[in-house]
């Protein structure tokens, strides 16, 4: 059944369901009982009477405030402010900030705020050169905003002097029963410290009183001026102002756009710890997953958009795994509980390997909380979390596009670390801890580290880790985070003799002696060695929690840092001399007698005459690899093709023979790309990498062109033109497919759209870890080659580095071409060549 046929059936079913239902909502002449018309006019008139002559100050209902717990603000303690005479006194320093959802209006200064009893209203204000006309209201309980009104600019400017405008906007200011330090409305300022660190946050009431507030986490803590605040009766809501990034820094801007809410600490969530269990050690024995039943897991780290979020809050998730008894992986899994106050986990198993996870970022403070809104946003678009690895030293890793979460057991007998790349030293000293005790940070390991071979996969088969194995790794004597691509030497069991050299991020050589030992690893060692010899490259990833991961065609090696149950017993065996080992001479020198891999994910086979090419992918921890093999029927020989590293989380969505090569499109993981394999040279060309919204599912190949005809407009604009290869790609203006493609026109200066396409190529180059990328830009009779150099040792180039490269390319294009008198229609004769 095609999509269209299914859509027609769906449409019919939807209409059938809808038509079968007759709404019970009353029509207007039945006077809908629940429709409440707010008495705007009456409210406006009444409020105008009340506030007449008193200006904006009466928005704060000072008459009511006179009955409050009025204190001498000059002597107000910063730690013992009573906010409710009937409630226990709460030390203000223990109160917690939360960050709410972003406002639907632009951040601004000079605005006014009002509390209606239910909502925190933001009215008017200045937006750089002009005044802001919108008013919006924030409901702190629901963490939601709504637009109140669109005011004319002049009306917005008059808000401060004309509160009736605010009333007209639908806000009836009220005064809460009690005030924070006698302040109902005020301004919050945070002055950065001399060293650029976050300064104290001070609330200055509109009547002059001052209260020093707990500092908000440093992500927002550099400084503010003019953020407006209102006391709601049980919380202080703050929004807007000028964002200051530190003394001497010229980067002041409006924002951020999120409200900050200061509340007394809520009752701590109750965490039911799992039963005490003896966790399996990294013994080399297969882990019986039933042993992990009921383990309480601690949130270990969150990576968000590639950044490691400091785990500065205690967090626990109670998992129940494999309740029905032993099951093959993937496991049915349910989990309840919470992971810190960030993630109010209601995690359920929707299907094997799929988890739903709702998050409530508003519950607490801390760096993780400050990023929680972003985290929720990523989760919202994910709809699926992949449960990737359950390590012998138990790490539970959940990954989704732009998110990576690591959990470790709460009991610590085998927990490695945690190792925090970003220890929470920058948090305010008074940062309150709630919930169960955190495992706490440990120093980043320096110097030689012991790595344990935790998991090995050869040709898709997980090999039992039945032999002692230790690698001593020297990592520049410093942080393994910053300098990891150096050298590894030593022994890895008796299977694999040392001399492991990691000369760059992706190059790996490794000599092995499988004849020296026995055991299951040894039994697979010959195959492993064969695979290694055929791998001219492998992807290597090193991260503190997981140790070292090596991915190559047909093998995966996963190491974890440090825990060995017993000392290695074979390290005293002298390694054999080098000349004992046969010399590998590269791919093809070690013919295989059978297909080197089992079935590959998303496998595609293409007939190239004497040889058939089979391509597929497998998704590993650091990235996806496109792997495959060729079979030459004449020679009856198999070969492993050059693997190609794609973006993390990618899967092959589509592959097609295009002339003398195979074109593949991979997406997922928030990144997508086109890669083309040329069997005759066993080489790959990177066509395009794209970061952002993507999708593409239908292609056709006509007249030497690969033409995408379903997908996002950005991709739809990319044509793959074979005859001109390697010029190959034609980037042109972004346009929707339903629009006619113009005939090539006469020359023109590059447009912004075209520069955008070019910038995608720069991204692709940077993210594929090449040293030098050459962009050839042809514009009619003018051809310019622009060479951009990257540092391929940097695994993930910073945005600044990519931006700098992009700027350099665009500047060259502009300086070389924009001065020319290119007139005429805009065509698509505009090409880029990417030469990795």
């Amino acid at each position, binding site marked *: 059944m095609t999509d269209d046929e299914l859509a027609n059936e769906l449409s*019919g079913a*939807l209409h059938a*369901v809808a038509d*079968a*239902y007759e709404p019970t*909502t009353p029509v*207007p002449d039945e006077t809908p009982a*629940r429709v409440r*018309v*707010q008495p705007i006019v009456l409210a406006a008139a009444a409020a105008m009477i009340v506030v007449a002559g008193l200006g904006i100050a009466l928005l704060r209902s000072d008459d009511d405030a006179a009955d409050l717990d009025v204190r001498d603000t000059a002597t107000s303690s910063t730690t013992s402010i009573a906010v409710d005479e009937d409630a226990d006194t709460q030390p203000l320093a223990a109160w917690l900030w939360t960050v709410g959802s972003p406002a639907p209006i632009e951040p601004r200064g000079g605005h006014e705020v009002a509390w209606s009893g239910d909502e925190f209203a933001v009215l008017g204000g200045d937006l750089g050169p002009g005044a802001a006309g919108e008013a919006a209201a924030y409901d702190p309980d629901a963490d939601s905003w709504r637009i109140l009104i669109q005011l004319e600019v002049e009306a917005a400017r008059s808000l401060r002097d004309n509160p009736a405008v605010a009333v007209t906007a639908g806000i009836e200011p009220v005064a809460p029963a009690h005030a924070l330090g006698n302040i109902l409305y005020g301004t919050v300022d945070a002055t950065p410290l001399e060293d650029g660190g976050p300064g104290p946050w001070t609330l200055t009431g509109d009547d002059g009183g001052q209260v020093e507030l707990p500092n908000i986490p440093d992500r927002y803590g550099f400084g503010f001026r003019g953020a407006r605040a209102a006391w709601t009766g049980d919380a202080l809501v703050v929004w807007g102002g000028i964002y200051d990034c530190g003394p001497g820094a010229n980067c002041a801007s409006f924002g951020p756009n999120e409200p900050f809410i200061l509340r007394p600490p809520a009752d701590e969530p109750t965490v039911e710890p799992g039963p005490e269990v003896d966790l399996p050690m990294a013994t080399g024995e297969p882990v019986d997953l039933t042993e992990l039943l009921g383990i309480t897991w601690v949130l270990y780290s969150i990576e968000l958009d590639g950044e490691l979020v400091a785990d500065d809050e205690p967090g626990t998730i109670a998992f129940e795994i494999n309740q029905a008894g032993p099951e093959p992986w993937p496991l049915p899994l349910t989990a309840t509980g919470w992971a810190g106050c960030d993630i109010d986990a209601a995690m359920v198993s929707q299907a094997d390997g799929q988890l739903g996870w709702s998050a409530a970022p508003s519950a607490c403070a801390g760096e993780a909380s400050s990023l929680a809104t972003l985290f929720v946003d990523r989760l919202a678009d994910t709809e699926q979390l992949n449960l990737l690895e359950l390590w012998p030293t138990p790490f539970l890793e959940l990954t989704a596009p732009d998110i990576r979460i690591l959990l470790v057991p709460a009991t610590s007998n085998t927990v490695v670390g945690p190792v925090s790349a970003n220890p929470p030293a920058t948090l305010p000293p008074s940062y309150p801890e709630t919930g169960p005790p955190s495992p706490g940070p440990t120093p980043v390991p320096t110097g030689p580290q012991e790595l344990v071979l935790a998991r090995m996969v050869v040709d898709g088969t997980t090999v039992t880790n039945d032999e002692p194995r230790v690698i001593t790794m020297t990592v520049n004597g410093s942080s393994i985070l910053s300098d990891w691509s150096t050298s590894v030497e030593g022994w890895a069991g008796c299977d694999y003799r040392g001399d492991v050299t990691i000369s760059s991020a992706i190059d790996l050589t490794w000599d092995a002696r499988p004849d020296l030992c026995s055991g299951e690893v040894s039994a697979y060692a010959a195959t492993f060695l064969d695979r290694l010899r055929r791998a001219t490259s492998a992807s290597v990833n090193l991260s503190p929690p997981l140790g070292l991961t090596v991915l190559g065609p047909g093998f995966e090696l996963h190491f974890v840092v440090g825990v060995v149950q017993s000392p290695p017993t074979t390290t005293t065996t002298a390694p054999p001399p080098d000349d004992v080992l046969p010399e590998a001479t590269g791919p093809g020198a070690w013919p295989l007698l059978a297909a080197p891999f089992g079935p590959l994910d998303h496998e595609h086979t293409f007939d190239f005459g004497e040889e058939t090419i089979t391509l597929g992918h497998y998704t590993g921890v650091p990235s996806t690899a496109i792997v495959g093999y060729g079979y030459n029927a004449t020679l009856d020989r198999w070969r492993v093709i050059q693997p190609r590293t794609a973006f993390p989380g990618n899967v092959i969505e589509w592959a097609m023979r295009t002339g003398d090569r195979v074109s593949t499109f991979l997406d997922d993981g928030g990144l997508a790309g086109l890669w083309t394999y040329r069997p005759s040279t066993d080489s790959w060309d990177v066509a395009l990498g794209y970061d952002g919204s993507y999708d593409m599912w239908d292609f056709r190949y006509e007249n030497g062109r690969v033409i995408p005809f379903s997908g996002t407009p950005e991709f739809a604009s990319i044509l793959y033109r074979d005859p001109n290869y390697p010029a190959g790609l034609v980037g042109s203006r972004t346009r929707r497919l339903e629009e006619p493609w113009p005939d090539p026109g006469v020359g023109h200066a590059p447009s912004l759209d075209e520069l955008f396409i070019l910038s995608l190529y720069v991204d692709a180059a940077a993210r594929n870890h090449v040293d030098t990328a050459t962009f050839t830009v042809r514009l009619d009779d003018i051809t310019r080659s622009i060479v951009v150099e990257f540092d391929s040792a940097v695994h993930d180039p910073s945005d600044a580095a990519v931006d700098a490269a992009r700027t350099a390319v665009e500047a060259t294009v502009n300086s070389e071409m924009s001065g020319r008198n290119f007139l005429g229609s805009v065509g698509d004769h505009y090409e880029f060549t990417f030469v990795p």
Partner: protein
Amino acid sequence: MRSIRRPAETEWEQLYRDERGPLVRAALLITGSPEMAEDAFHTAVERVRPRLDDIIRPGAYLRTVVVNVARDLAKRAAKERGSGLPSELPNALHADLDTRQMEIWTALQGLTERRRTALVLRYYVDLPVGEIAELLDCQPGTVSSLLHRGLADLREELSDD
């Protein structure tokens, strides 16, 4: 100066009368529950009516609010249920559906809220992708993806039955 459209009360009545049926039914398809659908429409009316004078396109605005409220209610209900269990269609509506339509309806409830909403907006409300993107606050490309993958999920759900 920007002029603000100020519909007369009769226009509101007209709007209410015209939109009530389609929007309640759309909310029913999003939430799977007549009660939640009625509630979503009521809530939306309460929010929109007081600001009607300031709204340029009241029909579109009302539809946006109905969809947003319905989605919130559906998500909250799913969370309270503790799982993505299918919403049960009231018995009174069963009689009007044939077996295949019932299968499709049941399969639709197995989809994620976001994909289900995208399918409803496209194949019942008949909105173009651009308007769905505005309603769901995402890029048009994301809507295309939601529709494509929603149909794929639906096909898979149907094949599982």
